[in-house]
């Protein structure tokens, strides 16, 4: 049985790993052609930096023996050693502990990478690298311990979060809000047009995210069982419903259902189902997906009024989608799907679960926002977060990486 569970977890880990290049494409397609490589690079460098730091120490701080009060793990698993004794708090019948922490590594990578959707077009590359290194230890690691480790204080209180509605989604959304407030708006935003330079690239990215999300959610069962199957179908249905929800909103609001809207809606649906995937029925997933699609479509429009430049809507889609998921989990969770779960408001469980979920969401918002804001401010005051106005106008690809994304014209790169 351990072999099957490990197989499933490793397959899922590969799928989640693949999500980060998918995200790079999703983001890369949405920016202007002078900043494509820079935002993709932020994603790729997260794969490098976060993985290495995870193996060295972060993994242990999340899943090592609790240091007390469920606040942080110790360094017993540093360097991925000491796993022979299993993961503290996890049973021994599940997947291989090394497989589980590998799977979890991919979560840390993509959560960090998500933030680049807010900071795109204006963040210095070295500052971004420094930022995610600090942020991993000061924001991601504690939150992940609280929620994903059975000894974490939130998990311990009975907060349900199947695959990271708090740790991944709300966290990335509100961390992004914090850093973009420090970073400031892109020059010219929102008066100048900053239309996506390649929507097909973004659609491809979403295709990869959709594919990978099955690993993300169903893999979070950490083995092959009935809950994994539910998590799988629920992910598929929430994505589908989210897509339709967003399109309907656009159709009503602006007359045109857009492809970028379809893509965004699918992502919103999957974000919202993330905490719920292994706890709700397929029919509830449809409801969750549709609501996420509609509400996130509204949420991404807020920034134009409040004038914070969350460039690719990490807050509007992941932050808000995560909140929706946590709240709806409090309504729809049912032990008929997962005996290790709980019942929600609509399923006979009263307000208990709902209040726990809301509490966890609020804690995450407050913690992520505050600590990220402090990190961003500290970096801004020391090495500086933002490129010069001239570099911003020439584009980050050239000025940060000495590269151009494309050279497709009949004359190739002119002048060569």
């Amino acid at each position, binding site marked *: 049985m351990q072999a099957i569970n490990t197989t499933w977890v490793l397959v899922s880990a590969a799928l989640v790993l693949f999500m980060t290049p998918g995200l790079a494409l999703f983001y890369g397609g949405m920016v202007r052609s002078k900043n494509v490589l820079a935002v993709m690079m932020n994603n790729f460098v997260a794969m490098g930096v976060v993985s290495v730091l995870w193996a060295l120490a972060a993994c242990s701080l999340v899943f090592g023996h609790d240091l007390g009060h469920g606040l942080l793990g110790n360094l017993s698993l540093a360097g991925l050693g000491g796993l022979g004794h299993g993961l503290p708090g996890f049973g021994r019948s599940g997947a291989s502990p090394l497989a589980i922490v590998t799977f979890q590594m991919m979560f840390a990578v993509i959560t960090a990478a998500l933030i680049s959707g807010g900071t795109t077009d204006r963040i210095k590359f070295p500052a971004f690298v420094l930022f995610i290194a600090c942020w991993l230890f000061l924001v991601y690691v504690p939150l992940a311990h609280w929620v994903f480790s059975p000894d974490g204080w939130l998990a311990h209180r009975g907060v349900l979060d199947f695959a990271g509605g708090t740790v991944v989604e709300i966290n990335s959304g509100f961390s992004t809000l914090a850093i973009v407030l420090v970073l400031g708006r892109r020059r010219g935003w929102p008066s100048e047009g900053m*239309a996506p330079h390649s929507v097909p690239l973004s659609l491809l990215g979403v295709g990869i995210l959709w594919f990978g999300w099955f690993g993300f959610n169903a893999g979070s069962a950490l083995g092959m069982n009935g809950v994994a199957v539910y998590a799988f179908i629920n992910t598929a249905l929430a994505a589908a419903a989210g897509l339709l929800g967003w399109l309907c909103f656009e159709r009503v609001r602006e007359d045109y259902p857009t492809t*970028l809207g379809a893509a965004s809606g699918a992502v919103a649906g999957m974000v919202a189902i993330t905490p719920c995937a292994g706890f709700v029925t397929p029919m509830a997933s449809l409801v969750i997906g549709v609501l996420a699609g509609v509400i996130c479509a509204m949420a991404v429009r807020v920034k*134009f009024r409040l004038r914070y430049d969350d460039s690719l809507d990490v807050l509007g889609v992941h932050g808000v989608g995560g909140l929706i998921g946590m709240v709806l989990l409090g309504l729809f969770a049912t032990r008929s799907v997962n005996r290790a779960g709980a019942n929600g408001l609509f399923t006979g469980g009263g307000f208990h679960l709902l209040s726990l979920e809301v509490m966890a969401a609020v804690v995450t918002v407050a913690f992520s926002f505050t600590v990220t804001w402090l990190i961003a401010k500290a970096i801004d005051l020391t090495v500086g977060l933002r490129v010069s106005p001239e570099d911003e106008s020439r584009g980050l690809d050239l000025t940060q990486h000495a590269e151009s994304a494309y050279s497709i014209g009949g004359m190739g790169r002119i002048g060569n």
Partner: protein
Amino acid sequence: MKLIVAIVKPFRLDAVKGRLKELDVHGMTVTEAQGFGRQHGHTEVYRGAEYQVDFVPKIRIELAVDDSRVEEIVDAVVDAARTGSIGDGKIWVQPLDSLIRIRTGERGPDAL
């Protein structure tokens, strides 16, 4: 010699080329262009952000011709490019001091 420049709708290029071939005109240079004029552009929407795009794709054709043929060729282009709807474009004629074929160094009408 004269230089005829025509700004036309992209999908008329083929017709223009065909008509010129009939007139035994065997050379031209075209570039992609964007036109701004009476013809309306369009609106695009991305996640609720609306973009008003004022420019419309056009093809810019350059034809160096002998003075004697200007009228005939201008008329042919006008005829082939016309659809009758707004945005059909413009043609203008400019004076040329000289023209050279790079391959041979021939000058003037012989270089065409």
